[in-house]
């Protein structure tokens, strides 16, 4: 494997130097030479989508297929005393009933929180926790029989909120974690922030709350499991992470992974909701093993709300010290996450509520405290922006307040304080290219900001915000030295190229990225590239569609594989044309002498020549990010090969009689590095804006507790498409999208992510626009009419949380920033563990 620290994607500059980009007329700028890259071409999987022929997981059916239904807990927290399955088993058509006994081994997406069972073993932790599964000849029979499964519970007290979790140590929802019902508490100090705040000209302190919300992909999760004729247990499932499902299934089913095949068909949206391995996938597989028949489960919409893994509700306390010139001297974030009933990605989510705070504006000292609690609600996890929209909302609103106090234009302030390219942040993140300033300038210009901000009159306002996101996480979920993504190419004599990769197409267009990059390098049409993805038996591992990693990581692997194929062909063609290898060009389906483009052959002939010369033409490429400079415990969350940047201006009209906020228009600019397909990029940006507006205005994963004297119930308030409010076609404002292209050396042909970043500036820009319109602060999302009216009527002209509860923080790790003599290590790490133990013991004392 090549040194992962060396970016191997060709930058345009290196392309010009070594002839690695397709042929073009001399003197033509690199951008114009691309044949498929950057073109608004129809995506390779469009035909299946517009004809309805794309087979999503629930579209798969097999002869003799059985249907499975889950029995889910109807109590929020209880010990399971017994499960009587006899009545269900006695029903006509029922083939099997499974319970937790069949799945003694736990699993979970993170190695540090293997806390789920495919079916609950001894206790249930939220309403909707799967307890048993019924397998029958048709789904209605399975459903009817599922209602006959009798579960006896011994109820336990419930934890409904993080505040309650901090207060109530017993009963514990889980027996692991940082004590009581605390899942994880972390503390990191990058420089002495209290001293910085003490020396600041002024300190702004705010509390924010970001409500939880869910992904709501239109496709409900579905799984078909069967025993393949190849002897493999095959699990076709709507999963964004077939590789991690592969590992979890092998572990829980106690089968060699080589005898399990995971297929991830294209998905009807994911947004992070299908990135955990789920119990129902493993149970369906077990049912197929037991019955010897294909077993299908398709979740109802309500069950999708129970799978959740969505945005954590987060309470934030933020303090920022500012000096006379308006510069930040120190910034402090405390976050309290409502994790729900299981770990999921929660430890990473906790770190993410602090990790990217530093990558937009210069912040010489930074302190982070994060705490995730367990509650008796569906588990939270990663949703588009994973853990970062919440602190981003707080930071961008706080900056608006700081600028108000400074009398500064908040757009100008952001531009002046933007971090520098090729720099390190206080928390040791390596920043490479930055498009933040041009993003801000673009939305300022497009929205007429300078002549309209603070000048639109009562009821109408403009707000601005900016943000940044990862282009893939720097580290894999489980520790290993292997690539994060691999691509394998097979070049056929016909001139067709098959690209194999384990990546999962969730709708974002990753199949198209693969085809475009391979086609561009080899100078062929994208339709001559057949992509085979989302199948652990057919392609090298790609870690999955999460953390906006696929374009960059799979893309770099694809480019490497294609370059190697190109070399094989060039060698053979150079020999035939009797020119130097460097003089062989690729383009328009031909391989030719760049000095005399008429001398050459078709791409298919070139493949045949290479095959004759050196045997079957197949190549591989892989990608692993470079190591990050942070060395402290917790430094694994935040590093990325590149960061994308976004900025947005939102215009609102606020009705002061009702508090209703109408978003009139959104201008959004995104630092894309290079757009591989502008139509798809636009779709990702507008889709992100859509989801950001939903979170800003109405989406809420809210829960309801019945009066405790009458009931122990703790239920999801709105587990339906109708009552979980998401914007429909008439609710969406006009969006003007602007791309900032500045090729990123670490990205394939310079590309960065676009699937998540543009969501981030939207909620704070809405909040800031509401302030511009009516001069009230709503320091939480969603910004509902109720909250706007309450703010209008409050003396403080504000709505939002007022305090942050006491959290038993561990002793902070002290990591000096690069400019304070640090080396990326924590200087107090050795004694830290013992000290934490002492603190735990003290916390446990009555």
């Amino acid at each position, binding site marked *: 494997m090549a040194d992962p620290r060396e970016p191997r994607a060709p930058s345009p500059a290196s392309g010009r130097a070594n002839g690695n980009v397709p042929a073009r007329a001399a003197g033509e700028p690199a951008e114009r030479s691309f044949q498929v890259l950057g073109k608004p071409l129809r995506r390779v999987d469009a035909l299946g989508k517009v004809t309805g022929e794309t087979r999503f997981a629930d579209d798969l059916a097999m002869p003799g297929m059985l249907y499975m239904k889950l029995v889910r807990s109807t109590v929020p927290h209880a010990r399971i005393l017994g499960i009587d399955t006899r009545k269900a088993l006695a029903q006509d058509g029922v083939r099997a009933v499974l319970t937790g006994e069949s799945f003694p081994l736990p699993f979970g997406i993170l190695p540090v929180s293997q806390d789920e069972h495919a079916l609950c073993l001894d206790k249930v932790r939220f309403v909707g926790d799967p307890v048993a599964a019924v397998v029958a000849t048709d789904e209605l029979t399975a459903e009817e029989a599922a209602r006959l499964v009798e579960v006896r519970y011994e109820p336990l007290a419930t934890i409904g909120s993080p505040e309650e979790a901090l207060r109530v140590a017993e009963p514990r929802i889980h027996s692991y974690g940082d004590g009581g019902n605390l899942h994880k508490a972390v503390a990191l100090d990058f420089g002495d922030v209290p001293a910085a705040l003490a020396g600041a000209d002024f300190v702004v302190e705010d509390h924010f709350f970001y409500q939880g919300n869910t992904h709501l992909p239109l496709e409900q999760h579905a799984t078909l499991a069967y025993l393949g004729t190849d002897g493999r247990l095959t699990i076709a499932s709507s999963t964004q992470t077939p590789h991690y499902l592969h590992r979890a299934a092998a572990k829980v089913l106690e089968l060699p992974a080589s005898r399990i095949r995971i297929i991830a068909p294209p998905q009807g949206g994911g947004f992070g909701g299908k990135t955990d391995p789920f119990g129902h996938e493993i149970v369906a597989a077990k049912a197929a093993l037991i019955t010897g028949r294909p077993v299908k489960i398709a979740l109802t919409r309500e069950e999708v709300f129970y799978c959740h893994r969505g945005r954590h509700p987060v309470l934030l306390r933020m303090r920022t010290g500012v000096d006379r010139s308006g510069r930040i001297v120190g910034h402090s974030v405390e976050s309290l996450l409502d994790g729900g009933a299981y770990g999921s990605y929660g430890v990473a989510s906790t770190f993410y509520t602090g990790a990217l705070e530093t990558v937009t504006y210069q912040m010489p000292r930074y302190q982070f405290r994060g705490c995730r609690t367990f509650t008796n609600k569906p588990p939270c996890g990663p949703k588009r922006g994973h853990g970062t929209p919440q602190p981003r909302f707080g930071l961008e609103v706080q900056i608006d307040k700081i600028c108000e106090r400074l009398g500064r234009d908040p757009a100008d302030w952001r531009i002046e304080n933007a971090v520098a390219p090729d720099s390190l942040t206080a928390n040791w993140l390596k920043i490479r290219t930055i498009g933040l300033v041009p993003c801000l300038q673009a939305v300022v210009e497009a929205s007429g900001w300078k002549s309209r901000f603070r000048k639109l009159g009562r009821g109408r306002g403009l707000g601005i915000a900016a943000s940044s996101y990862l282009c893939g996480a720097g580290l894999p979920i489980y520790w290993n030295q292997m690539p994060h993504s691999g691509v394998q190419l097979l070049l056929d004599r016909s001139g067709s190229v098959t690209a194999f990769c384990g990546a999962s197409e969730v709708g974002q267009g990753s199949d198209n990225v693969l085809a475009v990059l391979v086609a561009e390098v080899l100078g062929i049409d994208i339709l001559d590239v057949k992509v085979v993805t989302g199948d652990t038996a057919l392609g090298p591992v790609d870690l999955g569609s999460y953390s906006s990693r696929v374009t960059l990581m799979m893309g770099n692997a694809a480019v490497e594989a294609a370059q190697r194929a190109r070399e094989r062909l060039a060698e053979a063609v150079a020999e035939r044309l009797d020119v130097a290898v460097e003089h062989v060009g690729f383009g328009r389906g031909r391989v030719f002498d760049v000095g005399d483009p008429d001398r050459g052959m078709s791409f298919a002939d070139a493949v045949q020549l290479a095959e004759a010369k050196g045997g079957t033409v197949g190549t591989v490429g892989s990608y692993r990010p470079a190591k990050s400079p942070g060395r402290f415990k917790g430094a694994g969350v935040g590093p990325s090969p590149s960061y994308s940047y976004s900025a947005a201006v939102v215009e609102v009209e606020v009705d002061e009689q009702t508090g209703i906020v109408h978003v009139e228009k959104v201008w959004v600019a995104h630092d894309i590095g290079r757009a591989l397909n*502008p139509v798809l990029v636009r779709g990702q940006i507008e889709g992100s804006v859509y989801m950001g507006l939903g979170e800003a205005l109405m989406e809420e994963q809210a829960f309801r507790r019945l009066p405790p004297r009458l009931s122990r119930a703790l239920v999801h308030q709105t587990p339906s498409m109708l009552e979980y409010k998401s914007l429909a076609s008439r609710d969406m404002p006009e969006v003007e999208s602007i*791309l900032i292209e500045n090729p990123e050396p670490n990205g394939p042909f310079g590309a960065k992510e676009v699937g998540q970043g543009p969501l981030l500036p939207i909620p704070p820009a809405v909040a800031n626009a509401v302030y511009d319109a009516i001069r009230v602060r709503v320091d939480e999302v969603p910004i509902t009419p109720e909250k706007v009216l309450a703010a209008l009527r409050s003396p403080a002209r504000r709505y939002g949380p007022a305090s942050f509860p006491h959290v038993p923080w561990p002793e902070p790790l002290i990591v000096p920033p690069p400019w304070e003599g640090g080396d990326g290590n924590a200087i107090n790490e050795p004694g830290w563990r013992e000290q934490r133990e002492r603190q735990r013991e003290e916390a446990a004392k009555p």
Partner: protein
Amino acid sequence: MNAPLVPLTVAPREKLRLAFTVNEEARDVVVASYKTLLEVLREDLGLTGTKHGCELGECGACAVILDGELVLSCLVAAMECQGRCTTTVEGLREGPRLHPLQDAFADHGAAQCGYGTPGMLLAAKSLLERTPDPSRDQIAEALSGQICRCTGYAQIFDAVAAAARMMRGEPAPAPHLPSVQRGGSDGRPT
């Protein structure tokens, strides 16, 4: 019980023999009597192009055209389809040629994950049959029963408007692209 004069009666556990027209072809199937049109299309006829996102009439993914009207197949009992005509996404294209709406959806990025696309296409077809030159507002209204979580709708509106033009015999418009500005890291004011 006095047996009333009822021509069609299906008891709970009986199978239903359903003869109807799907995409201009006569179909005759025996199905479980509790099934909806959605279930019959997907499970008994193998026409999985029709999707489902809630089965309660709250998302629009299962929309099909039934006797010329856009309906939600999840809320139509199979028994109510006897002798009727339905069009699903599989019936849109004419032979190898895509329907202009399908071409436009493909070219304008209107199908992202593609899961809601069949319902969107049929809702759009239903609109264009009555309103060949719809305004942006009419398009938004016609699609107001179809939830899309991917696109933010704008590219779908573009595609419907483009298809309308194609169906009126006008040239197909190019997809609307974001404006592009070069520059970045070094674009900071100096």
